[in-house]
């Protein structure tokens, strides 16, 4: 463990104690409980207790047909609900061989990337809130509200989107949407300076994050870390590039990576990801063709052929996989969601060991967990 604080090995000889962080705690992002074994303020071991937000989505999937499960994925991770919702649609479309019209694909990309930016902005705000700065939270929410307003006009929702449909999207976007999106991109590019001056460059922020919560490289393979946490360890892996889904292979964007694997570079990676998302949105807005927004012929009954299907998308938190076992009927035999936060959270006992109580808060904030996503 490359910790800057020596862990007292013989905990017996010192007075140690257990601290229950959560399930209701300001910085556990919902209802997560960390059983911390502490020596003073140094963490000896962590035992995350999850499941407080379990809503049995997988059981619900086995009791509903494929169409009726549509509102559920966006509730799994409500911060980047659009990506989940559309990811589920794409999974079914591939299983059923439904062709999606060009325009719908572009709309989906724009919606996905706007959602990714809004998710990262929420992360930025709450992370800084965890570090004790309140103001960046509201600046981030200012920008996030702009995205929500744009998406609200076409999707009708602000958080738990149910915009995708098998074969397209619910509602066509109009010119005003595209214009607003383009305007937002221009505006948002000027906001990076603010975030950098106020947050990233700030000496206190750097003190709090540089070298804190380092993910050792072997955690990648052991735990299947994904998303910005992975890219902050120098691995340029992104499902959008590795197994391009939808029309992501048409866009020109980079995968930002950093080497250090600590809280600070995770922040940098996310900031860069927002820049890349803006790039994708701008290309998509420029190239969006006319045409139908939903496939004219979608099978009335969604019955994928018997077999097993896996589809993964890059959510704002990492590799989100949907594993569907079909027995040829209307209802999924088994639907399992591989959520990125679950894997990232599983690393916490290793990462938090030997850090301070304040670092635990910073680390939790920096991996950007969404607790309901872990609990499903």
């Amino acid at each position: 463990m490359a910790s800057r604080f020596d862990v007292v090995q013989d905990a017996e000889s010192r007075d140690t104690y257990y601290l229950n962080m959560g399930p209701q705690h300001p910085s556990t992002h919902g209802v997560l409980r960390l059983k911390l074994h502490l020596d003073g303020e140094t963490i000896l071991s962590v035992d995350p207790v999850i499941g407080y937000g379990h809503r049995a989505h997988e059981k619900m999937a086995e009791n509903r047909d494929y169409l009726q499960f549509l509102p559920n994925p966006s509730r799994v991770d409500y911060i980047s609900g659009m990506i989940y919702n559309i990811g589920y649609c794409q999974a079914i479309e591939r299983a059923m061989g439904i062709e999606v019209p060009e325009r719908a694909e572009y709309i989906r990309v724009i919606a996905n990337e706007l959602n990714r930016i809004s998710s990262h902005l929420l992360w930025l705000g709450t992370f800084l809130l965890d570090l004790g700065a309140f103001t960046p939270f509201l600046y981030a929410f200012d920008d996030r509200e702009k995205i929500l307003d744009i998406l609200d006009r076409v999707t009708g929702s602000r958080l738990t989107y149910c915009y995708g449909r098998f074969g397209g999207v619910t509602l066509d976007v109009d010119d005003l949407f595209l214009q607003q999106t383009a305007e937002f991109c221009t505006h948002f590019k000027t906001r990076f300076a603010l975030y950098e001056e106020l947050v990233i460059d700030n000496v206190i922020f750097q003190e709090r994050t540089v070298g804190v919560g380092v993910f050792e490289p072997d955690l990648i393979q052991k735990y299947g870390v994904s998303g910005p946490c992975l890219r902050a360890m120098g691995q340029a892996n992104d499902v959008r590039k590795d197994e391009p889904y939808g029309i992501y292979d048409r866009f020109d964007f980079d995968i930002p990576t950093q080497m250090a694997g600590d809280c600070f570079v995770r922040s940098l990676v996310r900031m860069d990801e927002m820049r890349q998302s803006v790039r994708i949105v701008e290309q998509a807005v420029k190239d969006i063709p006319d045409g139908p927004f939903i496939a004219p012929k979608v099978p009335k009954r969604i019955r994928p052929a018997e077999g097993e299907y896996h589809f993964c998308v890059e959510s704002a938190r990492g590799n989100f996989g949907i594993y569907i076992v079909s027995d040829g009927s209307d209802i999924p035999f088994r639907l399992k969601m591989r959520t990125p936060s679950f894997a990232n959270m599983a690393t916490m006992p290793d990462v938090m060991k030997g850090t301070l109580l304040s670092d635990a808060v910073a680390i939790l904030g920096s991996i950007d967990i969404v607790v309901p996503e872990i609990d499903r």
Partner: protein
Amino acid sequence: MAFVKDILDGTKTLLTGMKVTLNNFRKPSITSKYPIEKIEMSEAFRNVIVLIEKDDIQSHDCIGCKACERVCPSFCIDVDGERPEGMRRMRATEFKVDFALCSDCGLCLDVCPTDTLGYSKIHDETGYNRSDFVYDLLDPWRDAEGPTVERLRKLEEEQAAAKKARTVKKAAAKKAAAKKAETETSKETTEETPTNKNDAENNDA
């Protein structure tokens, strides 16, 4: 000296941060006084569903087909319908939505065969019980239901009559054409029978 430089650099970043907050201090606020100022909901805004008035029948056009009830993932819609006497068209007799369960997915709108479902613009309803959110969508239409059915019946009769007239006219035209053809070519006259038969069927319906 690195020590002093660190302190100076750090101080500089702190001052930059304070400059940012000062700049924002000078700008006007971007929030609205929500409960005082009403917020306009967007066109597509999803809330509890309502029955939309259709222009041609001046009322909702729910035929109680239960398609929305079947597709609803939250099992929150309760529809019933019956056929008023002497009419072809069904009318809904019950349409209840438990909005406390609704997940705003919009699948009911997708499946509605008559496109009579839409979203209401209410966005800030509160209640003390879950039962406060059970909406009876037929409520605004119930008073006018009698006259509406009468009007619809009349409309249907008119439509049927018009259709009949159309088919009769069509048949007559066909007949005339056939006659014309007959007189012109003086060939077989078997064409008449099927048209007559169609006519009879239409009248029955």
